[in-house]
């Protein structure tokens, strides 16, 4: 049974203190660093987790998490899992296709980094787009996330068929040159995406909070991830993207994200501002 969480109990000063203690405990115990996450969303997710794990206080949750690593794995799903869609915000993919792809064609080989890939929807979307544009064969997509459980799901590339209609509509609006059904096989209530896509995607464990750059890439796609970070951590992540991108490489962020108020804003030029695509300044 879910515990009835009384907002009066969880919004007080005690919650603030227990919140900091839990985040510190997770960092020291498991080396996952949530200290730079935007607080309001994280607090909300923790409240949901308290209810789910039958904890009346964050201290109770902390007790379970510190003494049971499987509890931590379960909590991590609450703190990180992001349900996305394939070709979410089709205008973004249309702009990639029409404006970025012509420049990507000029490189002999391509590396793309999907940072914060969650269950893989974005990585598969980009793989399909690049396949349609004839570029996938010379491309490696690095799809990274901090949650290894989610990465396993992403690598499997299996989605409920109930979601396929939405994916297909988005794909169509992205200027599709093929049918989405070319890229998966449906079995019972699931759609399994093709190995030919997976062969070009490397799923791996990487933290924007604690790890460094691992490759030079021509495109970074990191959408609806930076909204979960505070300004300091957002700037760290943007610094990594700047370092990873080749000169004139591209950065795509979420429809409601911006580089405003960022110390890294000067490193990037507007490229397709309405679709939130930026280009690394060549002179840096």
């Amino acid at each position, binding site marked *: 049974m879910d515990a009835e969480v*009384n907002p009066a109990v969880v919004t007080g000063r005690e919650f603030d203190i227990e919140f900091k203690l839990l985040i510190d405990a997770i960092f020291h115990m498991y080396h996952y660093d949530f200290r730079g996450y935007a607080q309001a969303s994280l607090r*909300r*997710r923790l409240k949901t987790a308290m209810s789910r794990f039958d904890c009346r206080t964050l201290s109770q949750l902390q007790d379970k998490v510190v003494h049971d690593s499987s509890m931590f794995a379960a909590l991590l799903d609450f703190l990180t899992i*992001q349900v996305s869609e394939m070709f979410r915000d089709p205008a973004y993919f249309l702009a990639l296709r029409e404006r970025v792809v012509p420049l990507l064609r000029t490189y002999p080989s391509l590396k793309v980094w999907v940072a914060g890939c969650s269950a893989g929807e974005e990585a598969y979307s980009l793989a399909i787009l690049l396949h349609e544009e004839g570029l996938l064969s010379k491309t490696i997509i690095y799809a990274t996330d901090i949650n290894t459980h989610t990465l396993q799901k992403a690598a499997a590339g299996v989605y409920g068929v109930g979601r396929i209609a939405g994916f297909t509509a988005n794909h169509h609006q992205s200027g599709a040159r093929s049918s989405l059904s070319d890229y998966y096989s449906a079995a019972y209530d699931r759609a399994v995406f093709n190995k030919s896509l997976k062969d070009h995607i490397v799923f791996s464990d990487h933290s924007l909070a604690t790890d460094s750059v691992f490759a030079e890439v021509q495109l970074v796609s990191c959408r609806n991830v*930076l909204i979960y970070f505070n300004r300091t951590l*957002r700037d760290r992540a943007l610094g990594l993207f700047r370092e990873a991108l080749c000169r004139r490489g591209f950065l795509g962020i979420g429809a*409601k994200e*911006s580089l405003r*108020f960022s110390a890294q804003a000067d490193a990037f030029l507007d490229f397709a501002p309405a679709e939130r695509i930026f280009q690394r300044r060549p002179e840096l």
Partner: protein
Amino acid sequence: MNLAGRIDAVVIGASAGGIEALTVLLPALSPGLRPPVFIVLHLPRDRPSVLVDIFARKCAVPVREAEDKEMVAPGTVYFAPNDYHLLVDPGPQLALSADDPVHHSRPSVDVLFESAADIYRDRLLGIILTGANEDGASGLAAVHDAGGVTMVQRPDTALAPHMALSALKLRPADCVLTLNEIAGMLQTLDASPTPMRMS
């Protein structure tokens, strides 16, 4: 009830009929208002929001779409963007999230109200207007439980009464009022600048 000296921020939640209701309320905000006003209004997804265009022309105070990581400015009306939750972070600073819909809604009234209650505690005014679902009820309860002031549009005057009725079922509201009465109350909010509260 007089709100002078009592309120540092206002949150408003509405759904069906919300544009008409806000057309009564927002023009009542006086120029030079001090508390910021955060609004979640449910709209059909995948449609560019025209709320800012609609209300900027009718209002004496600045009206903006909330941007992630923007510092909260006094006396400004912030609408949650379509398809994102709006929250308030310490600072106070605006925050957006793409977390799952709550009560089938993104943005969700509950998400905004609960996060604002965390920040503003007993200095928050929460207002639930017309709407056909129950989003906002537990959010307004959070405002109440943090010691804030709660107002609900009189259900018999709401285009869709369900949102107001759900809120009233969970907690009694400090005031249950018509839109014109709520508009009158908003005129008692502090003007800026005003001496800061001693803490």
